[in-house]
């Protein structure tokens, strides 16, 4: 997947498991530049599996590109939704699926993650040791948290935690959420179905992502750990590492904004802020 010219060159690892309680793995995923997506099907009698696979198959047609625009991704989403809605009785009719993940985007020459989400699968970003949940669940519980009606501790026990408010198919016509996040070399993106955070809290996920340098080993260990802790749902994890990121900025973005200093005028254009430059040169 090393493509010269891509705004983000990434390596990835992927793992999936049906878990201990479900007979069928209804999760589907796509991990091929520039798309890293997970779909968690629902519907029973294998219908969910068909729905998630149909969505992933639609997006598979976009692999091999350097980057994608939000319009291209959204067009594929609309086609995918149409396919799911058109599934015949006995082979997926009425089924639905979540969809989340990241796509490499090119914003005026700079490498970006275009994150998308519909439902309660999740996209996380590990950047400099900090794990951030990028996606916001489309779930009743999340809405209650947002409205201040429910705190995070109660949410984990809430009987409605599996009730989602948007999906592809299953009678939902909800639109996905999108985010554009400037990619940085060293970013590690995690795309997973809700079976992973259902068993592992954010700290547990972060520990494994930090401990396992190799993305495949990290993905495998995340899924294994979730199975070991109960595996109540299907579990899929994609781990995507940004090896190089194109950026037109001449300044390293390894540092955050520095406050103005009285000496600021003495710093020429190529010099890092004083405190940081001292260590580097």
């Amino acid at each position, binding site marked *: 997947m090393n493509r010269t010219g891509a705004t983000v060159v990434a390596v990835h690892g992927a793992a999936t498991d049906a878990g201990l309680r479900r007979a069928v793995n209804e999760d589907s995923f796509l991990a091929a530049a520039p798309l890293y997506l997970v779909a968690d099907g629902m519907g029973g009698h294998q219908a969910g599996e068909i729905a998630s696979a149909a969505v992933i198959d639609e997006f598979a047609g976009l692999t091999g590109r350097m980057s994608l625009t*939000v*319009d291209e991704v*959204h067009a594929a989403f609309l086609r995918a939704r149409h396919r799911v809605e058109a599934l015949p009785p006995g082979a997926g009719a009425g089924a639905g699926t979540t969809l989340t993940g990241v796509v490499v985007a090119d*914003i*005026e020459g*700079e490498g*970006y993650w275009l994150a998308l989400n519909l439902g309660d699968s999740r996209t996380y970003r590990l950047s400099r040791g900090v794990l951030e949940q990028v996606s*916001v669940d489309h779930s*009743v519980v999340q*809405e*209650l948290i*947002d*409205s*201040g*009606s*429910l*705190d995070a501790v*109660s949410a984990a026990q*809430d*009987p*409605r935690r599996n*009730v*989602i*408010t948007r*999906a592809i198919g*299953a*009678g*939902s016509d909800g*639109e*996905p*959420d*999108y*985010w*554009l*996040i*400037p990619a940085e070399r060293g970013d590690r993106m995690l795309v997973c179905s809700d079976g992973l955070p259902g068993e592992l809290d954010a700290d547990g996920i972060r520990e494994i992502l930090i401990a396992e340098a190799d993305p495949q080993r990290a993905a495998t260990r995340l899924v294994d750990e979730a199975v070991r802790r109960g595996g109540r749902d299907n579990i899929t994890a994609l781990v995507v590492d940004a090896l190089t990121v194109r*950026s*037109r*900025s*001449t*300044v390293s*973005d390894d*540092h*955050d*904004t*520095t*406050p*103005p200093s009285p000496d*600021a005028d003495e*710093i*020429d*254009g*190529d*010099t*890092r*802020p004083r405190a940081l430059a001292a260590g580097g040169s």
Partner: protein
Amino acid sequence: MSLHYAPGETPVVVTPLGFVVLDAATPASLASRIRGLVADGRGLGGVIEALTEAHGVSLAAIPPFAVALVEGDSVRFAVRGDITLAVEAHDGAVEMSGSGVTTWNERMIPGVTRISVAASPSARPAELVVFDGVVLASVIEWDAASRAVSTADSAGFDELWGETIVRAPAHPAAEDTVEVSVEIAGDHDGQTISLAQARAMRAAPHDDAAEHDSTPTPLAPPRPPAPGRIRVSSGQVVVLDRTVVIGRRPRSTRVTGTDLPHLVAVDSPQQDISRSHVELRVEGDSIVATDLRTTNGTTLLRQGAEPLRLHPGEATIVVPGDVLDLGDGITVAVEHLP
């Protein structure tokens, strides 16, 4: 978001995302439409749009309103007309008013614990609860303390795919009632202007700015689809047909649908400029600029006025002729469309 209220005559739109206090004369159909727009996440822009459609594009014709929308840990407020709204937050009590402002007063307040609105002085206690819908109220109270109260019973909740959330009310925790009052007046404040006046002022923004000294003058007549464009000193020219975020490595917040903001990256050799530094967005017919809580701030330069540092996180209306200084030699000029 749930509200407690006492019956009255002021229409209050309540959704899980926030509430809107409307003028007593608002037709029920308009209130319902606004409820739908807010519930769909259309935000303040949706409210303004609906009111503008109903009352015409003249600024003077838009009735008073108060909008409170939860955004993460903060609440976005917008108040128009002779309304005074005091809010209790972790940082203390805050008063918001729309009087003396031609359009409306907008502000993000973090850590809001309580909002209450008294539409008439001799009101009964707010004892009825509403989660989603339109009610006629005299007093409303919103209390963030309810987030610590467990969500009573969920029996009967079986609407797997519904957008509607139904649950038993969580009563606000017993704590000191914070005095918050809002007076809803039927008339505007005498400082509203007509569309023609606004156009005239826009044609001569400098004179107007001089009269109001350092206060940013909110005015922006409608000219859909884009009310202007920006010219960044580094050369980029961007039409304001959608939200623009400018910064060293700008990032978009969550967007439903494909209407992602235009991200404009600027060089900042001294790293004076934050990754996401300033946002320009179109609200109804206005252009509003928001400093995204940056380290070094954003300064509004308006001819004839003292340079004004934007309040972090608060929307300020800008007009063609204004210049925003981001630091590190980067400026953003707001321009008319050619």
